[in-house]
């Protein structure tokens, strides 16, 4: 085989290799969703960002409209500052609220935008004022236990079973309800 023939074969091989990389980037990775069009940035402050990660999706009405670009910590207000990168074709009113929610029971966390009713739209560098932090499961359980304990304490005073051991309150409650 001449030099030309080998060069053609090698060229084909390199092309197939590059096609494979492109296939992987476009079809099985998120390159296509990364690079469509221009974007603008807005920031939002959260008391607790939970398990939000960089490059997590930003959705409105369930549709992906952008990504989390940066997460930093404000040492003055002790809040997390999340910078969102939204696609330019989507505009939101200035009184839009942002909330950190979880996809499914075990899924990743993402930011959900709920548009307000203002006439003016968020511009680049704008701030989303109304935010709702991530739900932290431990806090929820803690609150639940606390409220149960408060309820139980109220019962205990009325029912005069203080110091009645661990087992007693539960069946007692069951009989009451």
């Amino acid at each position, binding site marked *: 085989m001449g030099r030309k023939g*080998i060069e053609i074969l*090698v060229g084909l091989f390199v092309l197939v290799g*590059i096609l*494979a*990389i492109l296939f992987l980037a476009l*079809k*099985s*990775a998120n390159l296509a969703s*990364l690079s469509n069009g221009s974007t603008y940035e807005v920031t939002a402050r959260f008391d607790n960002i939970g398990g939000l990660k960089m490059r997590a999706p930003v959705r409105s009405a369930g549709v992906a409209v952008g990504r989390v670009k940066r997460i930093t910590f404000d040492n003055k207000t002790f809040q997390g500052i999340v910078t969102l990168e939204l696609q330019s074709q989507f505009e939101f009113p200035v009184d839009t609220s942002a909330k950190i929610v979880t996809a499914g029971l075990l899924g990743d966390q993402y930011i959900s935008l709920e548009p307000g009713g203002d006439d003016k739209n968020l511009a680049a560098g704008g701030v989303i004022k109304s935010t709702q932090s991530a739900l932290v499961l431990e806090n929820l359980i803690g609150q639940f236990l606390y409220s149960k304990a408060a309820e139980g304490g109220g019962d205990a005073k009325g029912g005069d079973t203080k110091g009645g051991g661990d087992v007693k309150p539960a069946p007692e409650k069951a009989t009451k309800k």
Partner: protein
Amino acid sequence: MKPVEFVAGIGSRTIELLRSLGRHAAFFADLMRHVPAALQRFYLVTAQVHAIGNLSFLIIGASGLVVGLVLALQGYYTLSRYGAAEQLGLVVALSLLRELGPVVTALLFAGRAGTSLTAEIGLMKAGEQLAAMELMAVDPRSRVLAPRFLGGVIAMPLLAAIFSAAGVIGGWIVGVLLIGIDPGAFWSEMQGGVDVFQDLGNGIIKSFVFGVAVTFVALYQGYESTATPEGVSQATTRTVVVASLWVLALDFVLTALMFSTP
């Protein structure tokens, strides 16, 4: 055994180890120095990409496809227990891009291309072709070694990408065509979970590093082989063993560096 001999044994092993380390380093530096000369005669590199890459295409593509098929079948068994069969595409793509693509390709590459490089150079040495080139004032390192090194380094990442792509297609064949997972969910779960830079990019970096390691080991073993038939056969065996161990060790280090922090 006398204590003195014992100590002397330790000493001679240590010296031998250091010598071998030094020979490796010197050989690598030599190789790097002759890479620019090989780039000027690029047709030599092209011929090597053909010998190393094109001729490995079939084994790599077939292995990738079968690994993808099997990965999808086995993954489906576990995932369906959790009712998460739609995640099958994600499991197949992530395991291929991050680990199996680069590592299995490098192991196959050591067996398919590394051995042929070692045997070729070992036989050139045994037939005194390398010595003859030196006599004609042609440096065998820039004429023989450096083009082969570049050929291997160019071919390996492309082969790994072909392996992974074939594997993803294999996963699609089993997941969507045979098992009947919804194709939309299959691809969108995959795209949602696979990151271009974190997963695909790091996989390509891995395969590049493995390409350098395997090709270097193959060339070194060939160049340092004893110039006899047994010497060449031993060098070929050592290429597979040493290159595979290097690939596995490097894989652990690279994985720890790339993926340990989320």
